[in-house]
């Protein structure tokens, strides 16, 4: 390898590393919009009446379920969110007592769904909600893979205009100055709506005042970089089927390094392919030229050969012709000579 190319390679590697770290550092921790809203769910107050589910169904104009909302037998099964169910309440058991937990989108401060979405259909709004824009969505469902809480769902039954569906935190209602549907419907105050930092204060206060009632942890304060939906509970969150292994790093931070390369890769493919195409094209062109050249040469050589042969043949023919003429002339001369001699002899005889 030449010294110059070696240094060139080194410089290239350095540059690519630098851009990588710049990408990661550029994604510094976003601590949420100031004054963004959230909801605090207090599991110790929830009685599992499903009023929140009913309200959610009404305000989002979702199809009515098979069983009415006051049928509590559905709590015997573990349920999850669906394209027509943005929130469900599940029943768990701890020390023989039922405990409940409401499941819906947690509205992460730095949403994994938004970071995985390459068309920007998901957006963290200043209200705190993570909104979804169906007009941008291409239906790749990366958001469903990305979400650590397994929240987004998909309208698989709709072949023409399927959408990703999830809780909206009732952003339209919030902007009108109303409460989210579920919060308004809760008869027990298990759901408190307010500014996120305010809710954290309330949660801390409850835990501090009643250490005997609560587990000393606010779920969502730090999980996955923090969520706008917060939870406090009297039983370990694991019992409520909530993952405690998520860590406190926001999803985008985990993926930004790898994902920062994606645009580069996507951008470089055409160039790379064009280059490859150009090179192959050039090779082909050269080969064709060489071939044409060779053919020409061969043709010229063949022609020259033929001409030579022709000339030789012609010459030979000429020579043979000449020889024949000469022979004929000689013959004629000879015959004439003989005739003359005969005549001379005859004449002599007569005489």
């Amino acid at each position, binding site marked *: 390898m030449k010294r110059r190319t070696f240094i060139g390679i080194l410089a290239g590697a350095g540059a690519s590393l630098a851009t990588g770290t710049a990408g990661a550092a550029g994604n510094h921790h976003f601590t949420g919009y100031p004054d963004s809203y959230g909801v605090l769910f207090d599991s110790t107050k929830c009685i599992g009446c499903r009023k929140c589910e009913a309200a959610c169904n009404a305000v989002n104009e979702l199809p009515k379920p098979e069983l009415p909302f006051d049928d509590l037998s559905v709590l015997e099964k573990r349920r999850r969110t669906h394209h027509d169910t943005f929130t469900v309440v599940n029943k768990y058991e701890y020390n023989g007592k039922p405990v409940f937990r409401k499941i819906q989108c947690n509205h992460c401060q730095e949403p994994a769904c938004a970071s995985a979405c390459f068309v920007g259909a998901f957006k963290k709004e200043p209200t705190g909600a993570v909104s979804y824009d169906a007009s941008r969505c291409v239906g790749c469902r990366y958001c469903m893979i990305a979400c650590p809480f397994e929240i987004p769902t998909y309208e698989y039954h709709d072949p023409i205009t399927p959408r990703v569906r999830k809780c909206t935190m009732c952003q339209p209602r919030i902007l009108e100055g109303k409460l989210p549907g579920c919060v308004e419907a809760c008869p027990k105050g298990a759901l408190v709506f307010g500014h996120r930092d305010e*809710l954290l204060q309330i949660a801390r206060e409850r835990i501090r005042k009643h250490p005997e009632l609560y587990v000393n942890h606010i779920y969502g304060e730090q999980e996955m970089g923090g969520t706008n939906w917060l939870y406090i509970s009297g039983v370990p969150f694991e019992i409520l089927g909530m993952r405690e292994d998520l860590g406190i790093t926001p999803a985008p931070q985990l993926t930004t390094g790898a994902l920062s390369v994606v645009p580069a890769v996507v951008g470089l493919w055409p160039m790379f392919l064009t280059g490859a195409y150009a090179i192959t094209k050039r090779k082909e062109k050269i080969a064709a030229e060489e071939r044409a050249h060779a053919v020409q040469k061969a043709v010229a050589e063949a022609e020259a050969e033929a001409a030579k042969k022709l000339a030789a043949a012609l010459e030979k023919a000429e020579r043979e012709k000449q020889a024949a003429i000469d022979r004929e002339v000689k013959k004629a001369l000879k015959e004439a000579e003989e005739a003359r001699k005969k005549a001379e002899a005859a004449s002599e005889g007569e005489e």
Partner: protein
Amino acid sequence: MRWVGILCLSLGVAGFGLNALGGKQEGKPEPGGAGLILIDTLAASGKLSYPVVRFDHDKHTKAVENKCDSCHTVAEGNKVTPLFKRQASEDPGRIKAIYHDNCIGCHQRTAQADKKSGPQSGECRSCHAGPRDSVREVIPFDKSLHYRHASSKMVQPAPGQKENCSKCHTQDTPEKRNLIFAKNKEEAHTKCVSCHLEIASTKQPTGPVECAGCHDAAKRSTYKVIADVPRLEAGQTDAMLLVPPAPKSAAKDAPRSVVPFDHKAHEAKVNRCSACHHDARSKGVPACSQCHTPGGKEEGAFITIEQAMHRPMAMESCIGCHNAKKADPQCAGCHEFLGRTTKSQEGACAKCHVQMPLPEGVEQNKALRNSLAQTILEGKPKKDAALRLDEIPEVVEIGVLSKEYQPSKFPHRKVVKKIAAGMENSTLAAYFHSSPNAMCAGCHHNAPASANPPACATCHSKEFQEVDGRKPSLKTAYHQQCMGCHKHMGIQKPADTACVECHAKKE
């Protein structure tokens, strides 16, 4: 190709990492029975080369058919030494030999006699199996148990003594008697077990000799409990005046914040003296202030006298124990919420503390102090003021929020009666509920106690107000109050989710 290798390797490492993070820790093994003893006698004389021995005492007691002398020295008729096959501690080598020879020897002999037997030589780790938790707990020797011993014909006074107390308590004067054996395990085992064995040898009913009999809660719960135990005679007073230390700068005749304490009433309420006298030693019952000084000192674990009396979470403190009483079903309905929602009541301190100047010489004279306390206590109410039930509404219709459901008909008088019944004979309630309206404040909280309390909606707004995130909205307040009270009072019906039981659905 090389990239594929690196990718696989990194995925493998990542997977391992996840396993390491998300892998569940193995749970602890089930605890052993009360008879499980961990033998680690040699740990005192250096590092053990094998894990400690797990020894099931009860199993062996059964195996040798209650013949204690199979393992223990039994002297003076029935005095059992708790040590194994020896009288006193010896050098470690000797002790090791004693254990190995006797345990393994006995196991071998049992096995040769074609009986079920324990591990023999070469099976070291069958015995040396390492530590394990057990369900054993120190026996709470409560009043009922004490009475059953004290009143038993089998418990005779020690030689040369009049009272049969001397059978267990070596001190002769009541106030010097030690109250707990827990500090001296060996003495307790020698005394209790020997005595039980002695009585057993006369074919009389006796106390347990196996570990579980005293140390297993499940086993103990099957024993007879005497409900009305006569008052214990230990030279204690009926009432006493607790005098907090005075500030140095105070004038001599300045009023002091004293507490008249009804010792007799509390005796009847607690299960055993050590509930309060938690560290009475063989010298008798020391005054609290001996260890719990205003500044705290080492003997009292640096708990000051103020903390000793007021620590909310400690069962030995006044407030702690009273708080625990508030969790009883008949109290919890109100008190769970009072504790949660109201600020500390004005005058709460004055419930116990009386401001008064102490006459000359009273502070130094115990008898004078106690009679003064008696006098003050006699002035305290013994019964809750009667409610004038006819003056309170019978049914209250709650319909301010009525939308989906019809107004709720709340049986106000019935509820009040039920709560009043719960504190009918409670001197504690009578003492602390200062006015007839105190009970009303259970629900009508955060307002001056009166016969005409303000409506809930006065403070709890119907609409959500951001600034009031800490204060429940009206709907929450109603449901929380009713359901919360039902839950804490152990009222099963109606269920929280049975909406129509309280308000019918609108058609």
